[in-house]
């Protein structure tokens, strides 16, 4: 059974198609990354899946429950960290978690144990009785993640959890998310536009733009499916060498910046031919490296292609 299954799921705001015929299947127990630029429909998708907004068309099931007919069942089994952390800043960290424990009818000892269990690995347990108003954004965000897990949900939605954090706080939170995901065995639906984050945390990713799902698969699959293999050559190249390379039928695309050539080849196994050609014309080569494009390249290609299509 899937944690999330949507079929032709759509939501419009006036003329704007916020989510456009989204068909998606997210297996249980994985970290699923939902990638897209700002305003691409990621947050609206989460709101629809939680039954906070109604879809105009299509169907969605979350943990086997219809989001339109059984939104309460969905919300009972899920946790959510949405656009804002949603913590009560005048209350202490413990009270914030305690409130959510009460909402899910956890007993007092259960709540106390769970607060210790969640806050200890995040190094926040000793500060649990402080009002959180003066905490750093990173600490609040960690607490908000703990809050989504308080009631042992089967699925959690995290809407750009590292957004607005400095690089150190982001890296720490990513590590904590990885630990918690392993420890809790929960399905995570994570939206982000941070590709490194998706690469590190996600088993599968989906790319969305203008409400449309452009691609789904593991980061590895997406890299091999949507981008050409690349050859990186560093050295000194004469202008005529560059011109000669451009006419080589093996080269699909080429970029040259300050002594660095990036070549998209039609067949990466024949890269030796390029090296031979460069050596033959007297280019001084420092380094040659073959690799597939990273997720960021895949993402940018998909989004750019889609934007061209929309335009």
């Amino acid at each position, binding site marked *: 059974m899937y944690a999330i299954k949507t079929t032709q799921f759509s939501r419009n705001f006036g003329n704007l198609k916020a989510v456009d015929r989204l068909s998606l299947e997210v297996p249980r127990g994985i970290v699923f990354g939902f990638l897209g630029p700002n305003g691409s429909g990621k947050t609206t998708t989460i709101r629809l899946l939680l039954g*906070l907004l109604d879809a105009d068309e299509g169907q969605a099931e979350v943990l086997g429950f219809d989001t339109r007919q059984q939104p309460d069942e969905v*919300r009972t089994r899920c946790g959510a960290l949405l656009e804002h*952390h*949603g913590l*009560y800043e005048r*209350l202490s960290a413990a*009270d914030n978690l305690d409130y959510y424990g009460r909402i899910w009818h956890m007993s007092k000892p259960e709540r106390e144990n769970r607060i210790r269990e969640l806050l200890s690995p995040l190094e926040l347990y000793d500060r649990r009785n402080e009002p959180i*108003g003066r905490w750093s954004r990173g600490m609040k965000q960690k607490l908000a993640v703990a809050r989504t897990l308080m009631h042992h949900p089967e699925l959690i939605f995290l809407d750009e959890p590292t957004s607005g954090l400095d690089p150190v706080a982001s890296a720490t939170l990513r590590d904590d998310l990885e630990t918690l995901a392993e420890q809790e065995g929960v399905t995570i639906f994570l939206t982000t536009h941070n590709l490194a984050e998706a690469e590190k945390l996600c088993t599968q990713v989906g790319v969305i733009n203008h409400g449309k799902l452009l691609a789904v698969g593991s980061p590895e699959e997406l890299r091999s499916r949507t981008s050409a293999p690349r050859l990186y050559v560093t050295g000194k190249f004469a202008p005529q060498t560059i011109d000669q390379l451009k006419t080589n039928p093996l080269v699909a695309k080429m970029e040259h910046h300050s002594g660095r050539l990036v070549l998209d080849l039609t067949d990466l196994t024949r890269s030796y031919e390029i090296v031979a050609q460069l050596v033959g014309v007297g280019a001084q080569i420092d380094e040659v490296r073959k690799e597939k494009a990273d997720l960021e390249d895949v993402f940018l290609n998909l989004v750019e292609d889609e934007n061209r299509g929309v335009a």
Partner: protein
Amino acid sequence: MADIFTVAWKELREMLIQGDPRGRSKLSLLIVVAVFGVLIPLQNGRAWVDSPLSIIVWGWMPFLWVSGIVADSFAGERERHTLEALLATRLSDRAILFGKLLAALFYGFVLTWAILLVSLVTVNVAFGQGELLIFPLPLSLAALSFSILISGLAASIGVLVSLRAGSVRQAQQMMSIGMFVLFIPFMLIQFIPANLLQSLGETLKRTDPALAAIWVTGGLLILDVVLIAIGMRLFQRSKLILD
């Protein structure tokens, strides 16, 4: 029911226990108790306990207390970006709405009765002269029902305003206008011709106070129920999210 108490617990905790790290809210509560529990009863003397007019004060007080805090209920959650997280929980619409109403009502009721008890102590200490001064039973019963119903009235008006308002400040302004409108009839009394006022007074004197209290209680109850029903109708998760 447990969910309603859970929401009310959080509201009261935010209001009273940890609401203000510098203790300003506790200090303002002390000032309120000092003015209404000590100063005004001292000015009124024994009349504070035997005059039926004190019922007006008892009715007015909970409205004042509740309207001061209830504007924060939804507008505050929206302003501090906590509303969406709350709406994404398993809590039903009714639990959230009634929890917030209950917290405001409880606050108004408890504060009113705390002040009345302090005022009784004040009057007895200052004017008792060995005699125990207490409110007559019918007056106490009327005060009990009025303090609940008027707290409920202020809470339901406040929640309605707070549901629609864009910010806490806007909700507070709307509540202030509401309070002003409520007092317009009292201000207009001076413009009523003397003979009409006299005949009105005669009619009031002839009216059985118990019967009048029952009528007022019934009217307030109906008003509370109608306002709560409107609140339930207006409370829509999708609308609150998009607002």
